[in-house]
């Protein structure tokens, strides 16, 4: 297997602060790679640079062997790299359906000439895109809000919409930034199955930031751990969970983060 994303000693500075510091990592084609690390480790910043939303201060980023450092994000989209945002970036004054329908590119109706003079062709394309969007909504179980303004969605629904957009078109690589946060666990199970299916059947590569260890354990191999802006270690989740450095920096004592058992018992005891 070859690497589809290669990050080579990339740094990002905000003022004097190194959010990402000489970070080198790679994501194998066809893998589901996890990215974990403490809050503020620089994971989202790294994503933003890979996806072209931020420009690195130094270093190079290769996508499918091509140097894409500093390219704007629409150029990366054209190379079929899709991403979600950790803090939902919905188009708040557009309906949920429109939010999805705007995603596919090369729409004839997006050019003035097409919009003016090729109504039939535009109509045909629209029909297909709409059908696709409705499928996605069904899958995410938010069909009932399809004509709602996206700004009026609940927090979790926005995250689902965020994910839904990446399902609107073919992709080579999908970057998922904490899609689990705020999403109902039952639904999350379906999402995870879908990710597995896309990965297996269509060969999508996923690069996933997540704090939910169950999800990471279920989906990701390998897992990369970032801390303080650079890669701390990487490997299989089982090894990671037992790495004392990771436990120290990330899990804070126990590898699952369940420090609450004692109290739970106390609650039981109350009248």
């Amino acid at each position, binding site marked *: 297997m070859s690497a589809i994303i290669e990050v080579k000693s990339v740094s990002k500075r905000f003022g004097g602060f190194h959010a990402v510091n000489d970070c080198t990592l790679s994501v194998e084609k066809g893998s589901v790679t996890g990215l974990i690390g403490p809050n*503020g480790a620089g994971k*989202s910043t790294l994503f933003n640079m890979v996806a072209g939303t931020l420009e690195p201060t130094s270093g190079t980023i290769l996508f499918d062997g091509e140097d894409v450092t500093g390219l704007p994000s629409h150029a990366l989209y054209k190379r079929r790299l899709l991403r979600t945002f950790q803090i939902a970036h919905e188009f708040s004054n557009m309906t949920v359906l429109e939010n999805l329908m705007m995603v596919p590119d090369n729409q004839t109706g997006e050019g003035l000439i097409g919009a003016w003079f090729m109504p039939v062709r535009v109509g045909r394309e629209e029909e297909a895109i709409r059908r696709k969007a409705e499928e996605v909504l069904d899958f995410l179980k938010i069909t009932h809000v399809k004509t709602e303004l996206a700004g009026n969605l*609940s*927090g979790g629904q926005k995250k689902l919409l965020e994910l839904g957009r990446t399902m609107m078109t073919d992709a080579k690589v999908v970057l998922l930034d904490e899609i689990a946060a705020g999403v109902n666990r*039952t639904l999350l199970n379906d999402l995870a199955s879908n990710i597995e299916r896309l990965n297996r059947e269509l060969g999508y590569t996923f690069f996933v930031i997540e*704090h939910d260890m169950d999800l990471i354990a279920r989906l990701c191999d390998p897992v990369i751990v970032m801390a303080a802006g650079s890669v701390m270690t990487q490997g299989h989740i089982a090894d990671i969970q037992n790495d004392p450095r990771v436990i120290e920096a990330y*899990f804070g004592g126990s590898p699952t983060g369940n420090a*609450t058992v004692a109290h739970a018992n106390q*609650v039981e005891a109350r009248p």
Partner: protein
Amino acid sequence: MSLLEIRNLHAGYGQMTILKGIDMMLDAGEIGVIVGPNGAGKSTTLKAIFGMLNITEGSIHFDGHDITGISPEKLAAHKIAMVPQEHNVFATLTVHENLEMGAYTRRDDYSRVMDEVYEIFPPLKDKRRQAAGELSGGQRQMVAFGRALMIEPKLILLDEPTAGLSPMYMSEIFDRVIAINKLGVTVAMVEQNAKQALAIAHKGFVLANGQNSYTDTGRALLDNPEVAKSFLGG
């Protein structure tokens, strides 16, 4: 008499009704956890308690006072604090100023609470002079939670406080909830990390489609296979 009593609450945004009869009782010193699918109306319930939307029917009482439809800024005076799910920090204010704003209604010396917050969340201490908008997602959650602690509330409403936090801080938040609860603070929280949350809850509420669908002790809900399958992810 419960500390927080919500009876037959109907509320919504503009013309649209989202909550169609919610009942919820919390005694002083309890932790109540609200779970449910996305869009069930969990956040809306919290917002309704906080006077942020139109209540068309039903009532909310706090500590014997009718607080139905009272404006949010008055609730702070009742020592109720809330952490909204989204937009829960002042992005252009520094971390320190965010915390100060949390204590806006306090006229006494609150430096002790402030120190405590910094102690719970060490990353905030490093970033105290930085604008909250420049923080990572998880760091913002810490700020939001810390801000709510600043008035030393009697009742704290938390909307998914652990979303986006690393396991370490997730347990930190749960620990903190337990700790303040032990001091007598009543907690109402919405959580998607439902299993952990219900485990520490005295009461659990499952909402679906703007209505109560299950109400029980946390433990009992966890053990209910029906609930576990449809709402807690098996």
